[in-house]
């Protein structure tokens, strides 16, 4: 789960990493007060999209009056589909150099990875690999100061900057561990008056670890419909097509989306109804698909733990309550298949046993695909 910039900065401050003076701003009056207190400042929209600056989400205010007017214009504005509800007012910095540092998890090596570069200020993907220094962490040892000194040396830093950098690496790793971070990144790590300051920061917390971070504000950055399905507890991603899809298991759901596209159709969503979902959540998920007003609904089930009769019951329940006003294509095989297929047939729905013809039929019914 991504954290807003002001929360990431807060975590840095808690751990003693220098950040520019800043304040959270909820209304124009607070913007006035913020600039009165900290002087000329950048007003930064607190949204979780990249490229804020270019989209008009970072503006400068030199006086309190200017801050109030700018905040008026920014609060409530739409930034790449997200409404700006809060700003972070941050003192302007006179930046001499821009570095990069992050701690993240290396999936292949299964250990934390510290990445650093003297070429900061741009996305790290755009930095030439030769300019990036990588050091892996033994999780049994963690990051001790020598690790930071070695990293500073490999970057070619010396003097005050090397000392400050080594100290900062230790603290950044503490944040990574204590916050169960997937990523903690400072970019740019600015040099101001010869000292390091974290000018911008990102903090992504592992969703699976939220149970032990009760004070973390829950942020669902999904669309309205995504938020609705996430609340049922199912994985859902909105896509821009018009064939709604339900499958069981993440891999199957991905493969089903792929299959619709393979036959030339446009998938409306990814929905994993769970590896062993029972009648009720399956019906709820179907209700959401109906509410999306797709051209066709495609249900693709390989019942392992999921029981085909449960899926059939869910389909019939939705048909008899909300109603399913669009063509429905069902592929149903696996555990309790006979019972499931029989229930559907009694209600006049014929089920496919193979995925390919079913996906092709769904695309046909949507009037899409190759002719």
């Amino acid at each position, binding site marked *: 789960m991504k954290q807003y910039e002001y929360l990431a900065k807060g975590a840095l401050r808690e751990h003693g990493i220098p950040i520019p003076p800043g304040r959270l701003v909820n209304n124009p009056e607070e913007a006035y007060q913020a600039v009165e207190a900290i002087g000329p400042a950048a007003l930064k929209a607190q949204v979780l999209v990249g490229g804020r600056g270019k989209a008009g989400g970072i503006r400068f205010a030199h006086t309190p009056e200017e801050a109030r007017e700018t905040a008026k214009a920014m609060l409530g504005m739409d930034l790449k589909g997200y409404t700006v509800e809060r700003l972070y007012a941050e003192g302007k910095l006179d930046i001499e150099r821009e570095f990069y540092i992050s701690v993240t*998890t290396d*999936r*292949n090596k*299964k*250990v*934390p990875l510290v990445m650093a570069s003297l070429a900061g200020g741009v*996305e*790290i*993907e755009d930095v030439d690999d030769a300019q990036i220094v990588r050091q892996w962490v*033994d*999780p*049994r040892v963690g990051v001790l100061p020598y690790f930071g000194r070695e990293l500073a040396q490999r970057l070619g830093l010396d003097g005050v900057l090397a000392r400050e950098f080594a100290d900062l690496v230790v603290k950044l790793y503490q944040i990574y*561990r204590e916050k*169960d971070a*997937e990523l903690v990144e400072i970019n740019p790590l600015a040099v101001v008056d010869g000292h390091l300051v974290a000018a911008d920061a990102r903090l992504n917390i*592992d*969703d*699976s*670890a939220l*149970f*032990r971070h009760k004070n973390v504000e829950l942020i669902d950055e999904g669309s309205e419909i995504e938020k609705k399905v996430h609340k049922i507890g199912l*994985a859902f*991603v909105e*896509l821009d097509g018009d064939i709604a899809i339900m*499958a*069981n*298991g*993440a*891999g*199957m*759901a*991905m*493969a089903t*989306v*792929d*299959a*619709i*596209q*393979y036959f030339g159709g446009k*998938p409306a969503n*990814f929905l*994993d109804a769970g*590896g062993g979902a029972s009648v009720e959540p399956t019906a709820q998920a179907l209700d959401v698909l109906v509410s999306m007003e797709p051209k066709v609904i495609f249900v693709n089930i*390989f*019942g*392992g*733990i*999921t029981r085909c009769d449960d899926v059939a019951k869910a389909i019939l329940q939705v048909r008899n309550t909300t109603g399913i006003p669009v063509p429905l294509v069902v592929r149903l*095989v*696996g*555990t309790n298949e006979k019972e499931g297929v029989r229930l559907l047939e009694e209600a006049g729905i014929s089920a496919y046993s*193979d*995925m*390919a013809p079913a996906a092709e039929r769904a695309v046909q019914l949507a009037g899409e695909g190759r002719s």
Partner: protein
Amino acid sequence: MAVLLTKNSKILVQGITGNQGRFHTKQMLAYGSQVVGGISPGKSGEQVEGVPVFDTVEKAVEKTGADASIVFVPAPFAKDAAFEAMENGIKLLVMIPEHIPVQDSIDITTRAQELGVTVIGPNTFGIISPGEKTKMGIMPNHIYKPGPIGVVARSGTLSYEIAFSLTNGGFGQTTVVGMGGDPVVGQTFISVLHHFKDDPDTEGVVMVGEIGGSAEEEAAEYLKTFGKPVVAYLAGRAAPPGKRMGHAGAIIERGRGTLESKEKALTAAGAQVVTMPWQVVDALREAMASH
């Protein structure tokens, strides 16, 4: 023959008195797995499906000689369960739960490496060796049959789909291994492929991969010297970047983990990469014939 899990494996079930633990103990016994004990603190002396329950792994190992364990406890307690198993000599550990914190998985896999423990998962359907009539996992029993194909997959249901199509297409399996859908898991494609390479009964391999990470790309390097036919299916062709497709690990981040990159690497290494799951059987038939 089979890899990692054989009929001699003596299996414990950690969390045996929970709903999942009970249900799958029954399924595993029905398949033929040698489930010798279960763990549920405070419930020693009870039985589940005729299997004795112990308070601790230590006691269970002492009484049964178990060398393998499958974990069904809720994710927040999974690290504790995994370490309890490893510190008491368990050598094959299957971690079923989803939503185990990644940093717990880092600690588990790091310790496993030190102790020489094979960890399957987390967030996996487990492992099954049809020819040995044994399984540790939650997969349906009826879709597999003994035969010469090794399967290694990142996702459950999708691997069921493919295993069942193999079975119907006349290709039985030596062992089917679920790596798990999390970012950090015990096995890599390479570590599992290595076992299949050494297993004389495994004549061909099916890999079921997906977007996210670079396990497939790393595997491609290894495949160049693998020596057995490999067919790969990769899910997530239509997935948009930046979105988690159900599995915590299935995400294209910052331009990494794309399907194109995986497909290119595997194809260059000589694997047959198919576009759709139903194409696996024909591709395998072809690959086996021309090998």
